[in-house]
C-alpha cells in the first residue's frame, strides 16, 4: 500500500518522513550515504590512465581518469600548463540521459568542476610547466558517471581529488642539442596538490527544510539545491546555488557549517585510502 502511495503522491509520502526528521532510506536529515573510494591501478580498473579513482556515494557511482599529455603553453601564459575537466553523463547512468551531445546538466557540471579547480587552486598551473614557453603538461580529467542516484557534484569533486592524488608524472627533460623532449618513464613524481576541496550538496524542501546528500528521487522533489565547496583551512572555494527556493543568510551559514564538518570526514577517508595503497 505504501508503494502505491509513494508512486501516486511522492511529495506527501516524503513530507510524512520529513515531519519525523528522517528520510525513507532511514537516514537523518544531516546524514550522508556510505562513501567508498577506490584509488589506483590495482583497485580501480583504469590501467591506461595516469591516475584514476572510483567513488561510490550510496548508489551514485562516479569514476575519474586523469591522462597527462605534453603541449606547448599558450602565448599569453607561457609558464602555465592546462587542466581540462570533462564530466560525462552517459545514457547508461540514468533513464533521463539520452546518448548524443552532452546535455545541460553535464556541461554545467563540467563548468562547476573547472571553477572548483580554479577557485581552490588545488593545482597551480605554474607547477605543470616544464620549460617556459616551450613545453607544459596538460591534464585531461574525465569524470564519468556510471550510476546516477543524486548528488553528482559531491561525488565528482571527490573522484577528481582522489584521482589527482594518485597521478604520477614522469620526469621530462629537454635535450639541449636537439631541442626535443625526453620522457623518463622510470622516474615518476606525484602531482603537487596544494589544497583539498570537498563539496557538500543540500536539497531545499518546501522552502524551509535542508537535507544533505539528496538521492535522485529527493532531487526531483526538491525545490532547490545548494552546493558548498570548502578547503582544509575552512575557506569557501565555491557557493553554488543555481536558483531554486530563496534562502536566508542564516540558513546558508548552517549549510557552510555542515560542509566544514563533512570536509573533515572526507579528508580522513582519503588519507586512510592513500596510506593503504602507498607501498611501504
Amino acid at each position, binding site marked *: 500500500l505504501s508503494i502505491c502511495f509513494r508512486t501516486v503522491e511522492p511529495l506527501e509520502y516524503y513530507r510524512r518522513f520529513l515531519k519525523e526528521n528522517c528520510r525513507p532510506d532511514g537516514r537523518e536529515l544531516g546524514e550522508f550515504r556510505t562513501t567508498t573510494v577506490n584509488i589506483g591501478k590495482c583497485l580501480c580498473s583504469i590501467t591506461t590512465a595516469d591516475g584514476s579513482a572510483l567513488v561510490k556515494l550510496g548508489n551514485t557511482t562516479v569514476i575519474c581518469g586523469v591522462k597527462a599529455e605534453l603541449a606547448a603553453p599558450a602565448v599569453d601564459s607561457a609558464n602555465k600548463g592546462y587542466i581540462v575537466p570533462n564530466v560525462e553523463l552517459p545514457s547508461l547512468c540514468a533513464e533521463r540521459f539520452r546518448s548524443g551531445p552532452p546535455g545541460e546538466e553535464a*556541461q554545467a557540471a*563540467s*563548468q*562547476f568542476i573547472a571553477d572548483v579547480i580554479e577557485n581552490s587552486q588545488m593545482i597551480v598551473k605554474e607547477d605543470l610547466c616544464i620549460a617556459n614557453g616551450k613545453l607544459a603538461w596538460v591534464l585531461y580529467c574525465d569524470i564519468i558517471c556510471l550510476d546516477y542516484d543524486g548528488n553528482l557534484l559531491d561525488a565528482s569533486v571527490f573522484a577528481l581529488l582522489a584521482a589527482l592524488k594518485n597521478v604520477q608524472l614522469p620526469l621530462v627533460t629537454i635535450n639541449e642539442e636537439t631541442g626535443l623532449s625526453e620522457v623518463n618513464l622510470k622516474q615518476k613524481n606525484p602531482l603537487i596538490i596544494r589544497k583539498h576541496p570537498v563539496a557538500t550538496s543540500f536539497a531545499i524542501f518546501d522552502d524551509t527544510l535542508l537535507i544533505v546528500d539528496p538521492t535522485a528521487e529527493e532531487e526531483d522533489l526538491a525545490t532547490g539545491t545548494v552546493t558548498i565547496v570548502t578547503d582544509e583551512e575552512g575557506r569557501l572555494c565555491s557557493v*553554488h546555488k*543555481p536558483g531554486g*527556493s*530563496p534562502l536566508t543568510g542564516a540558513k*546558508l551559514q548552517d549549510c557552510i557549517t555542515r560542509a566544514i564538518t563533512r570536509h573533515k570526514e572526507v579528508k580522513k577517508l582519503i588519507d586512510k585510502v592513500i596510506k593503504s595503497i602507498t607501498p611501504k
Partner: protein
Amino acid sequence: GVLERSREQLLRQTCEAVLLGVLHPRTAISLVLQVLSDAGSLLSCCLNAACMALLDAGLPLAALFCGVTCALQPDGTILLDPTARQEQEARAILTFAIASRERKVLMATTKGSCSVEEMQQCLAAAQSAASTIFQFYRDSVHRRYSKC
C-alpha cells in the same frame, strides 16, 4: 560553450523559482539574452535584465529579483558592481540574486576563494544594495507607464 550553458542554467532556475508557472500551463516562456557589451558584472546585469523583461511581459511573479556582484579586493575591502579591470584584480568575485521578499538569496555563485566571514559581509552588502536596484525598477516602470 560550457560557460554559457552554466550561466543559462543559473538564470533559468532563478527565473523558474519566482515565475508562477502554474498559471500558464502548456506554455513555453523563452528568455533570450544578447550581450551587447561586457564591462564587468555581466551575470548580475543579465539577472536584472531578465527580471525587468519578465516584468515588462506582465508575467505573474512571486517576487522580484536583482543581481549584485561583489568583488573582494586583495586588501579585504568589498567593492560592489566592479568593472572588468576591478574584477581581474580582485581575489574573489561573488554574485548573488536577491529576492525582493525579505531579501533572501535566490542564487549564489562565487569565483575565487574567500573566508566564511567575508562571504557573509558581501551578502549583507549585496542585500542592502538590492534596495537601490528595486527602487530603480520602480522608477523605470513608473516612467514607462506615466507616458501613456
